[in-house]
């Protein structure tokens, strides 16, 4: 290290120089008397500065400063007039009361959804279980829902039910289960009657005009459904034909 470099870095302290630089510095300091004399002045200055550093200003009165700060803070508007709408919105959303209200609304929505979902899920599960139970019952168990008033609607959907398109029906505003075996028996009976319709006596036709119409006219499924919907009396006639224990209550 030469004198020029030494005098350039002699104002830096040990922790401000790299280890190698510091070694070189010390080496030059021990060999160059002129530089060492210059460095002594720097050391004197350092000592003087250390004394100045130790002279701390008298502290502020903390209460007075805190009061002044609080006064200033109260003067600051929640948002200034030049702020953009976005900034105002963000600041507004940042208010504790607004955040609390938003959190409450969100919680309410989530809770409602969860309750509704859980209730609906349980309800549907219950229906499915009931359907499975009733469908597996013996044919001797009467269908629990069928009344004369409900029957037309039910019969109109029989084909859909049997082919698996429907699993339960809405009768008089309530969801009800159906005894699948009983309905299959009714369909089977209808098919049998259809096949023997030409041999049925004229008295049968007179006694059961609606049923006779159904058995002899070849209609497609939709027309049949429509016809059946209107014909509640048909069920009464069917009831007369099926065994006592399987009659619709």
């Amino acid at each position, binding site marked *: 290290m030469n004198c020029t470099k030494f005098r*350039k*870095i002699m*104002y*830096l302290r040990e*922790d*401000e120089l790299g280890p190698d630089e510091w070694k070189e510095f010390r080496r030059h300091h021990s060999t160059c008397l002129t530089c060492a004399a210059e460095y002594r*002045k*720097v050391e*004197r*200055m350092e000592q*003087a*500065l250390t*004394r*100045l*550093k*130790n*002279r*701390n*200003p*008298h*502290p*502020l009165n*903390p209460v007075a*400063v*805190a009061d*002044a*700060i609080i006064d*200033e*803070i109260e003067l*600051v508007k929640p948002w200034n007039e030049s702020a953009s709408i976005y900034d105002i919105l963000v600041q507004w959303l*940042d208010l504790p009361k607004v955040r609390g209200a938003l959190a409450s609304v969100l919680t309410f929505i989530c809770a409602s959804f969860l309750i509704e979902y859980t209730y609906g899920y349980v309800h549907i599960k219950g229906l499915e279980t009931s359907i499975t139970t009733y469908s597996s019952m013996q044919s001797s168990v009467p269908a629990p829902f069928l009344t004369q008033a409900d029957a037309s609607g039910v019969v109109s959907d029989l084909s859909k039910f049997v082919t698996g398109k429907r699993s339960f029906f809405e009768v008089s505003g309530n969801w009800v289960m159906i005894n699948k075996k009983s309905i299959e028996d009714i369909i089977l009976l209808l098919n049998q009657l259809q096949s023997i319709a030409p041999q049925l006596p004229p008295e049968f036709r007179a006694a059961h005009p609606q049923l006779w119409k159904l058995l002899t006219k070849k209609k497609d499924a939709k027309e049949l459904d429509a016809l059946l919907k209107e014909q509640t009396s048909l069920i009464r006639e069917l009831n007369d034909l099926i065994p006592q224990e399987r009659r619709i209550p």
Partner: protein
Amino acid sequence: MEQYQGYAFAVAFRVLCDEEEAKDVVQESFIRIWSSLSRYNREVKFTTWMYSIVTHLCYDKLRTRKKKGTTALDAVDPSFLASVVAEDNPELLYSNKELAGAIKMLTDKLPPKQKVVFVLRDLQGLSVREVSSILRLSENSVKANLVYARRFLREHLIPIISD
């Protein structure tokens, strides 16, 4: 709070050499800290962040003062500065005004950046890394400013303390 106020006041006082201006800067700094707390990066030490706010406010004031050509204090007797830096008794108390006068006499001719670097490093005792973080300068730049400031101070201080 009191502790941080003390730190903030000491820096502002040493940079500005004026008690009233330093008080104003401390108040303004704490209002800024309050209003921008949400932007505070917790990876940075709170004191570093606080020093950064205080120092930048002081720096702005120094530059304004420089432009207007105003000074905060009247001229100080050099012998008084000599007694402040020569006296080794720490129990010897000086008023804020006396202390401000001594620091001002020593550092008033320094450019604002060198003055701030010198105060933070040599009078406040922060490390070079902390100073570089507070002033957003490289460490080499901080060291360069320190060299210029100390060289200048040596030239002014040595004749005074040698008398």
